């Protein structure tokens, strides 16, 4: 079953709903009473220090951890159901991937189609077309036969973005997408994000690179164990709020990527 593309277009549909979310790891609270509501067609930045619960929230949205309290709905469905409909795509940080794995760019993007294939994962013509289209959009079609180990950081990032496109996911979760990418990739990704928004997809970007949030994100979520503030970037992204998010550091110190020392919670 393919996710119908025109489902992206229903404008007032809620993509991500999270309410009263609590997550704890063996008694250590990672997230409490976190709430979030994102409609279709928006780019949202998720900003917080290391250990503030960004990746915990991602894991909860992908159903990897069961919240001890609260509910999550993706496209109005429980997470497991939304996953089976290929609604959620996760674009990993490059460091989390084994780059010496013997797969080509084409193979990786084809993995985005697995969920829509039969049990033996034999690609049909429509799957190949989706992969080709996705590779064209990230400008990697020429490199489709290259092993992923031979790509640059930016090209690799685009490969995983292409996989999310091929999956036809309506919700994209991106982990530090601008980390270690070249200028060309950064520009291309910014254009793609705007296109995704116009197509009705919702993009949640986890980052501590504040300048990018200011440039692309319609909405911003400030997080430190709970959602401190969220809303329109222009309203929420104030020096006071940012200082609060980063534990009272003066805002002029944190315009660059936050350093990990002592921010680790």
């Amino acid at each position, binding site marked *: 079953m393919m996710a119908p593309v025109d489902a992206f277009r229903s404008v007032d549909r809620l993509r991500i709903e999270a309410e009263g979310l609590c997550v704890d790891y063996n008694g250590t609270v990672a997230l409490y009473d976190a709430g979030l509501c994102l409609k279709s067609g928006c780019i949202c930045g998720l900003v917080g220090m290391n250990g503030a619960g960004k990746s915990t929230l991602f894991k909860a949205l992908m159903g990897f951890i069961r919240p001890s309290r609260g509910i999550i709905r993706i496209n109005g469905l429980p997470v497991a159901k939304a996953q089976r409909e290929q609604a959620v795509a996760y674009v990993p940080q490059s460091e989390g991937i084994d780059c010496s794995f*013997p797969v080509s760019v084409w193979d990786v993007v084809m993995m985005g189609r697995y969920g829509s294939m039969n049990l033996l994962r034999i690609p049909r013509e429509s799957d190949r077309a989706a992969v080709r289209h996705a590779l064209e959009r990230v400008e990697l079609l020429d490199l489709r036969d290259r092993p992923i180990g031979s790509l640059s950081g930016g090209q690799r990032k685009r490969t995983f973005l292409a996989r999310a496109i091929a999956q036809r996911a309506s919700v994209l979760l991106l982990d*530090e997408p601008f*980390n270690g990418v070249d200028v060309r990739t950064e520009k291309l990704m910014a254009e793609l994000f705007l296109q995704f928004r116009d197509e009705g997809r919702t993009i949640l970007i986890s980052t501590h690179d504040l300048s990018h949030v200011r440039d692309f994100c319609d909405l911003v979520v400030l997080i430190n164990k709970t959602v401190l503030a969220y809303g329109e970037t222009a309203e929420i992204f104030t020096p006071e709020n940012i200082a609060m998010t980063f534990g009272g550091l003066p805002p002029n110190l944190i315009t660059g990527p936050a350093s990990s020392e002592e921010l680790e919670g």
Partner: protein
Amino acid sequence: MNALLAMSTPLSWLLEPLSHGFMVRALCVSALVGGVCGLLSCYMTLKGWALMGDAVSHAVLPGVVVAYALALPFSLGAFVFGVGSVALIGFVKQKSRVKEDTVIGLVFTGFFALGLVLVSRTRSNIDLTHILFGNVLGISVADIQQTLLISGIVVLILVLLRRDLMLFCFDPTHARSIGINTGLLHYLLLSVLSLAAVAGLQTVGIILVVAMLITPGATAYLLTDRFDRMTWLAIFSSVLSSLLGVYISYWSDSSTAGCIVLVQTGLFLIAFLFAPRYGIFKRRSLPAVISSQDGSKPG
């Protein structure tokens, strides 16, 4: 003297052993087990489960002894203990602060020691050296049937789920996020590992079976950047090692298990030295692998 004469022509080197029924059986079983383990070895090396393979193969010893004592098929006992050891490793790791490799080493040596004690305490005709070092030259018909069945199951699972298992090894996060049950795949792959260890035990014994489960995959990994090609290369090198090993052991009158694994190690060494792209003496003319035109900064 006879052996030397026979070796003088390559054809008789190949054909003479085939006049013995036990050699034909040994060649067929070794090749089959080699192929099966070769296929699995791709997943083991890519997933980083070499130590797990070592653990499971050692942990089956008590199972073999118990099965003999209860007059059950030995592969059944071995399988139960193989899976049991894996479950125990997972449990101890989850419930304690001890690191995974320590837990693995701890559990499999414990199981192996239990097996040694059981062998010495059980009145039976179990030959410990056969279990430890293999006895493919003296394999019984019943054991051949068991090996055939086990191989069939392993190949069926690995072929049917090869795409899912590859994705599971490469990017389990993505696999989960598109609704694939990675927990099931994890335990399925471990069960397949236990089965393959049982099959490999017949040929090369408990001590060396881990070589069958990782060396062909490691050799193939040095030769290609394609998963499908890697699978075929691993199977090919593994079957070739088994056949050559059995022949060499026949003509040199030495340990069959030792010869098979030595040939595998030799093939790995050749790949390690001369693999076109990843060997030490790779051809200089190949273009640099990393393109620097994008000037990406390290994350």
